[in-house]
């Protein structure tokens, strides 16, 4: 499977979406994206953590301490109400954008 680079801005969208089902720690988020996209999307930790910090600053997630599967103390990220709103807004925007691109591709 080809490893595709993430279009910028989409990372935030995906992270928020992934967190909608429940709080996860950083590595789990990366794993989840990787799995759900059938290995198509790989998240470099280099892009994940800065993105997480940005989302944290904007208040779309909060971070709490929890224990990982390995018994280690690690930070879990949880979606907030604002984050949910942001997710819906961005998802809608993304859909509109893709539809527009698809239309142009089909008819031009």
């Amino acid at each position: 499977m080809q490893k595709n680079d993430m279009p910028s801005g989409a990372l935030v969208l995906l992270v928020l979406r992934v967190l909608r089902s429940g709080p996860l720690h950083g590595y789990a988020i990366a794993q989840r994206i990787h799995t759900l996209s059938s290995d198509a999307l790989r998240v470099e930790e280099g892009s994940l953590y800065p993105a997480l910090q940005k989302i944290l600053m904007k208040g779309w997630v909060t971070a709490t301490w929890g224990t990982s599967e390995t018994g280690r103390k690690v930070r879990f990220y949880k979606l907030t109400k604002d984050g949910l709103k942001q997710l819906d807004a961005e998802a809608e925007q993304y859909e509109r954008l893709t539809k527009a691109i698809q239309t142009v591709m089909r008819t031009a």
Partner: protein
Amino acid sequence: MRELLRRLQYLLQRSRRDDELADEMAFHREMAERDGGMPLGNTLRLREESRDAWGLVWLDHLGQDLRYTFRAMRSSPGFTTTAVLVLSIGIGATVAAFSAFNVVALRPLPVTNPDTILRFQRQAPTRSATEIPYDATLFYRDQSRTLSAVLAQTSSRLSLDGSDQAATTSFVTANFFEQLGGRAAVGRVFRVGDQGTTDAPVVVLGYGFWASQFGSDPSVVGRSVRLGGKVVTIIGVAAREFSGLSSGNAPAFWAVLDEHDASRRGVTMWGRLAPGASVQMVEDELSSLAAQLRTLHPTSENTLWEGERLIGSPAGYGEVGSTEMLALVVALVLLIFAVACGNLGSLLLARGAARQREMALRKAIGAGPGRLLRQLLTESFVLAMMGCVGGLVLGSTVLKGIMVWTEAPSWLDPTPDWRVVVFAVTIGVVAAVIFGLAPALHLARRTRATPRGRTFLIGMQVASSCVLLIIAGLLGRALDRAISADPGFEYEQVIVIEPSLIEQGYTADRARVYLQDLRARLVGMAGVENVSVTSSPPLGGTKVMGSLQVDGRTLDVYINQVDQHYLSTMTIPLLRGRHLQADDVTGIVVSESLASRYWPGRDALGQSFGIGEETFTVLGVAGNARSLALGDPDSVELYRLAPAADATSLAMVVRTSTAPDLLYSSVVTAANGVDSNFKPRVVLLRDRFAERVKLAERSAVAVSLLGVIALAVACLGVVGLVAYAVAQRTKEIGIRLSLGAQPRHILGGLSRQFVGTLMGGLVVGVCGAAGVAQLLRRELYGVSTIDPLAYLTAIVIFVVAVCVAGMWPARRALRVDPLVALRTD
């Protein structure tokens, strides 16, 4: 909003959060390894990028820049001290000037609602006056609807029992203190309802007088004193900061104007705008009221003029004096500022060149030009702030010193207020940024600093110092001229008596009697040669003036209202024609300057001359005697007999045959003896002359000081410049020396770089000085604005100083050991 809070929280917990992140990423790596080979990233860079997400990078950079700046400044103390010193001088001079302006004009007088107070003056097509008849002000007060209050004031010098000095007394309307928000330090101040003519008139003491005369004793309240022949009761002491609406010293006594005073005394009138009224509305209303008053009392002596208007001007702020003096001071201060900035610019440029290596190194590690520029600008900014602080301290101290030196009124407070501080900070930033920007840009972008920038800066300094020195020279010459020149009349043996009869409530007839009495007493005295009267005593403050337009220039005509003995009393020579006789009501004697300018090529005798609505015939031509405007080459005089109605404003001049000090006390006794209620002011004319000269002396000293400071700073700049050039060319000089070049050839080469700039700066400086000198014309006592002696002296001093300054580092260059020079990098 909440985002800001989150950011703030992050800022405060930064190191802990950073550690947590490092921990998290380590965990991520563990898990990745366990699950099989995810690529590792650069931890440090990742952490940096994560930190960047919080958007507080600029804060970090600022902190770094500041720390670096302070370290750099500490490691080159010579540069830092010089730069801060230069900035402090420049900012200090500008701050001192602005602070003075602020205290006098920008800061409102300490009265309530200064913006609604207007001062009124009378104006008609052919004449104007600064005072209004008191009864007219009462009429306006009662009838006006656009003014919510009317205030009036007039001053007198009254005799005070128990003191041989006359006491200045200000007579004011009863609402004066109330309207202006003047408080009492002890006792009470006037209330509406306090009258001036009751059997026990009341007075308020001025604060300064209370301190000096009564030793700040609070028990003076309730005491009675004899003032001006009347027994008055002291009801209180005015607060220290109160001095009414004038910028001068507060009077010794405040008294209430007598509403039933029959004299046609003139008062200074102010009014407070009623809410909703505009200045135009007030002027129109008052002018129509004046016309009404004129028809109501057509036969009164001091009748109001036809078509008279009352003009209002804001009175809540102090006055600045002539715009010309203001422009001059601004020009001089800007020059000092220019010199300081030019110097700063050169310093920064020189320093910049020395730091090229450091900049190259930083660039190699990865700093962008923006980052470097920010760093350099931060340095300029820190320098500016230090210069501001230094400048504020220096400027305030200098201003305090000047105020003490010129004996300014004590209620003026020179401590800098927010306006001055804002001003200082602004110009500091402007100076440092503008003059630091160019060097910073050069440095950051690695462009070569063109010599043009340098030369411009040095040229600017040269020109500014030149102007200052030349102006100082002109003032020095003016001073010399003022002391030695002949003013056209003899002043050493004259005593002036100013009874100010109109302030004492005299009518014209009583005044005539008074003057005759006084004259009789004086004429009989041994040692008195001649006695005369005049409306404008020489070197005094009262002037009756007109203006003439001749050849596009405005001449000030000083109208002296005198008697037939005046010219001989003042030893003003009669050149042609004859003296005024006692019945020459329509005759005038004009000064030579007026005759030659107004009737060029013709004989002035017999010509007609109009003053106001009257016409006069020229009976004689007298020598020039600028008794009222010593230094002004554009002033002319004429003499006419004083009309009977003006007897109340006349002063007496006495010529003595011996030294006037000997007769002084007898004259004082004679003057005091005519009316025991008051003591006229008696002065020796030569004392007044000395005071005038003192002013010229002080200006000359002040500007010379400025000039010397500017020269010193400019020389500093020259030294720096030459030293820098030498440092740059050490290798070249070493080679040339070792090949056998003569030292003077090397010096010649070095100086050739600068001679062009110096010449250019000198030329600009000379032209600039000529321009600025135009503003000084009236104070120069006839010295030409392009007086060659002054210019030449200044230029010579300047050239010598600059050459010496330049030679010093150049000579060090020549003592360079060629071997050392060749090995220098």
